[in-house]
């Protein structure tokens, strides 16, 4: 659980990795009352608490730019406090939260509510404001006021901005405030009430299919808008091979576009649904092996910038409904590194790359300059054991909700401890 550390602590013998410079050094990190004092060769005081990081990687705290914490409105699913704990336990020290709460975060007042309520939490929470009022897709919000209040991006995530003109207005207007516009890319008409990937399997299961073109058609529209306006669009949870191909084309043309992929889309397949497991029902849906491979290729060749969880808590009652009515989404903060690392190492990536996609890559999407282990600044550290094999169980879940289809999976690689200022999480530091 979360505890606080006072005094000096020395993380010694680890390999210290800076993903921004892609530099790795052997050495130690000295913290005092949660502040970084020395890095590399340290001269610790006598009463220092020594933590042996032999075989571990001392990396920046992970960053998730896409999570749902459900507060205000559905505190029975998640709160800022429980969401922050879930994130912290998974190695994250910064999380951007989506505005599809009830009411949605579509005013500077609601953004301020989040900022004030999360001020004392162990991790940094960055609210994302809605693109349109009530996320209704019609009128753009007070984007400037929301940014001033602390919003770091705008998104109607959960629902797409279906109207192309509204999207154009939002992207052009948001340029004035230099924040990304994140559009949930699914054409609702092509989606056609689909509840899983449209495929031979959806036919056999009798489940309405959501075709990959529902995503790629909307991605294509947004890529064109990005090129036309020279605005900043970020494409969340890319799920299909078609979308990856389009994004690659536009990136090669030099269009300002960024994209993320979730651990579940690179780690799970539509076949997870053969027993109608509602915990694996997610939007966009889990797809085929071909799509999964394309997403991984996209990460490795730089088409996709980062990994984000789309952590989406739902109650047991919600997930025990029938498949059609059960809501989309799965939690992911606690399993994110384990799943992503397992899958990507298998695909030939390095642990350092995975760390990069979950720190530097995410920060760049948001336009943040990271200075990992900056002397004099509060610590944001994840300590990673790249070799630990572990089974992900319900006991690892800190979220208020337990809707994870990852329960029972064996992962390789784990964040063993997280440090954020004076707060720590993890057995390694006890």
């Amino acid at each position, binding site marked *: 659980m979360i505890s606080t550390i006072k005094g000096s602590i020395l993380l010694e013998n680890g390999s210290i990795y800076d993903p921004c410079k892609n530099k790795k050094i052997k050495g130690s990190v000295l913290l005092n009352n949660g502040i970084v004092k020395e890095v590399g060769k340290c001269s610790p005081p006598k009463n220092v608490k020594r933590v042996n990081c032999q075989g571990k990687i001392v990396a920046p705290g992970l960053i998730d730019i896409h999570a749902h914490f459900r507060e205000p409105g559905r505190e029975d699913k998640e709160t800022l406090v429980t969401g922050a704990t879930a994130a912290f336990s998974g190695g994250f020290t910064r999380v951007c939260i989506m505005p599809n709460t009830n009411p949605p975060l579509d005013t500077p007042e609601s953004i301020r509510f989040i900022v004030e309520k999360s001020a004392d939490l162990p991790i940094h929470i960055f609210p994302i404001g809605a693109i349109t009022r009530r996320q209704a897709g019609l009128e753009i919000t007070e984007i400037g006021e929301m940014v001033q209040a602390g919003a770091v991006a705008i998104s109607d995530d959960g629902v797409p901005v279906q109207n192309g003109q509204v999207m154009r207005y939002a992207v052009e207007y948001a340029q004035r405030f230099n924040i990304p516009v994140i559009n949930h890319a699914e054409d609702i008409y092509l989606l056609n009430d689909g509840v899983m990937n*449209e*495929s*031979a399997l*959806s*036919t*056999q*299961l*009798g*489940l*309405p*299919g959501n075709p990959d073109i529902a995503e790629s058609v909307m991605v294509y529209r947004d890529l064109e808008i990005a090129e036309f306006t020279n605005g900043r669009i970020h494409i969340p949870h890319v799920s299909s091979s078609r979308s990856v191909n389009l994004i690659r084309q536009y990136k090669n043309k030099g269009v300002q576009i960024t994209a993320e992929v979730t651990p579940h889309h690179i780690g799970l397949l539509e076949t997870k649904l053969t*027993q*109608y497991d509602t915990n694996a029902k997610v939007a966009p849906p889990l797809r085929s092996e071909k799509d999964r491979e394309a997403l991984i290729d996209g990460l490795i060749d730089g088409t996709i910038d980062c990994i984000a969880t789309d952590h989406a808590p739902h109650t047991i*009652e919600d997930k*025990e*409904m*029938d*498949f*059609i*009515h*059960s809501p989309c989404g799965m939690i992911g903060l606690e399993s994110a590194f384990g799943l992503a690392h397992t899958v990507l190492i298998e695909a030939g990536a390095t642990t350092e790359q995975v760390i990069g996609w979950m720190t530097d890559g995410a920060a760049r999407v948001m336009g943040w300059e990271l200075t990992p282990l900056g002397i004099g600044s509060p610590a944001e550290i994840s300590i990673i054991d790249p070799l630990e094999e572990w089974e992900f169980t319900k006991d690892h879940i800190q979220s208020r909700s337990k809707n994870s289809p990852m329960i029972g999976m064996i992962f390789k690689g784990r964040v063993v401890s997280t440090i954020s200022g004076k707060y720590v999480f993890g057995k390694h530091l006890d």
Partner: protein
Amino acid sequence: MPTLRNKHLMGLEHIDSDDIQLFIDTGFTFREVLDRPIKKVPSLTGKNIVNFFFENSTRTRISFELAEKRLSADVTNFSATLSSLNKGEGLKDTIQNIHAMKIDCIVMRHPSPGSCLQLSNYVDSIIINAGDGMHEHPTQALLDMMSLQEKFGRLKGVKIAILGDIIHSRVALSNIFGLNKMGAEVMLCGPPHLIPRNIEEMGVKINTDIDEVIEWADAINVLRIQRERMGLGIIPSIREYRNYFGITQERLANHKKEIVIMHPGPINRGVEIDSSIADGEQAIILDQVLNGVAVRMSILYLLLGTEEEMST
């Protein structure tokens, strides 16, 4: 008594051909019972069956109820479309409550695909799927196959066309699973956008020209076209549908061949099929209805029956 490999009848996808044949053959045994003056046997005396219908049904519900009563089971009907069950309201709670009253078998129709499988996680009764959304309707497919076997004496090698709105049809899907296993040849026909992509992967042929299909087929299973789909931009009009996909008097007259016409009902006369055809000599639609009761008796008997000899 012969034994089945599965405890439930959720669908035909996971039932093997021996069990399908057993359901059909036992169905013919019960057909004889239905020809007697007293159409009742004591096979399921003391068994409790609840018919859960979360979707409108007349034909299937009555067919099940008759089958259950003719096997002397105790029957309770629960129809949720009329009650206060809201969209998505806990299926689990409703079912667990009723199950707590000790039920041997649940016959369920539900609009959500996979709901029978989900149900099996909550209760230990025997479950019979009476239709789960667009997924399966195994008892309909079994009665269709029984009727085909009655007509042709076999299923292997028989050429069956399924015509209509394939993509929304659980009757089509269960028939495809079943007929494939029994060695029949299956061809699908209908408006191209109402035939699922990738469905050839299930080992069926597709031809959207109804006249070619009529030339090919030994039997055509004509699906009901939901009137709700008319005029929503999915099917342009009744006249156009009839023109390209309807089993009309004129069309059949042009083909000088014997062909068996089936329909799962209820029929939209004058839409997917002309009245004169539905009531004509080629149609076996009412045999299907009778076989429906017989095959459901067979299913209930085989899933719920005890070791005692069937009293016939």
